[in-house]
């Protein structure tokens, strides 16, 4: 059984583009300071940043929880938003439902969810249309990813 070393929950405000990404920058500093390898920090914060941007772009609000154990970095993101009708399609690189505003921000090119999956050792996504989406990502600290 892995020992939990840290658990921190962050509130994400939907639609707030100025602050979008702040949480992931903070997580980067925390993981780096704890001596996690550069490659694992990088994988973890790419997942967290993409998740954070998705909540800001699509949802009303969400919560990102960082859980660090002696074996892995886990990220749980639960939002209250429109949900994803077809998850398989949403995971296809290039598929996007982004608005022009989102694209002007540099996001919404259909790479977010594939990026999250690629950088995770375990990636689960569940969604209910009209209610919201939850994502769980695990980055194992002993993997070479």
């Amino acid at each position, binding site marked *: 059984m892995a020992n939990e070393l840290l658990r921190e929950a962050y509130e994400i405000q939907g639609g707030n583009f100025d602050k979008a990404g702040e949480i992931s920058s903070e997580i980067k500093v925390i993981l780096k300071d704890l001596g996690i390898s550069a490659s694992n920090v990088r994988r973890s914060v790419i997942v967290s940043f*993409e998740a954070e941007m998705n909540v800001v772009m699509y949802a009303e609000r969400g919560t990102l929880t960082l859980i660090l154990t002696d074996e892995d970095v886990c990220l749980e993101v639960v939002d209250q938003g429109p949900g994803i009708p077809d998850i398989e399609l949403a995971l296809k690189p290039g598929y996007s439902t982004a608005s022009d505003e989102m694209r002007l921000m540099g996001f919404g090119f259909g790479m977010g969810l594939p990026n999250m999956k690629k950088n995770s050792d375990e990636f689960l996504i569940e969604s209910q249309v009209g209610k919201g989406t939850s994502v769980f990502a695990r980055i194992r600290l002993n993997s070479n990813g």
Partner: protein
Amino acid sequence: MTLKEIKEILGCDVLVGEEDLSLDIQQVVASDGMSEVLAFARSKELMVTGLTNIQSIRTADIAGVSAVIYCRGKRPEKNVVEYAGKKRIPILVTKLGMFDICGILHARGLKGVS
């Protein structure tokens, strides 16, 4: 190639990070899509983009790129420059467009990431 050489070749202004111009650059990632940068950058690249908002620097920080060049003379807001300074990511601006920047740097031996 150092960032200082790149600055001279492309005729850049340095908005922040003058003290880090000795950084060695081997690879370049060029895109206005931040998820593309996150997908392909492996760290320590130069990022070329036309996107000058705060997310461009947040993306650079998350992806671990060494420096950012904004094309077509686009200049970011003051808070973006300050944030880059805090994250120690140099920002350069050139009047050249992205296609020309990439062509010039490629001809001098820099490679893209894929």
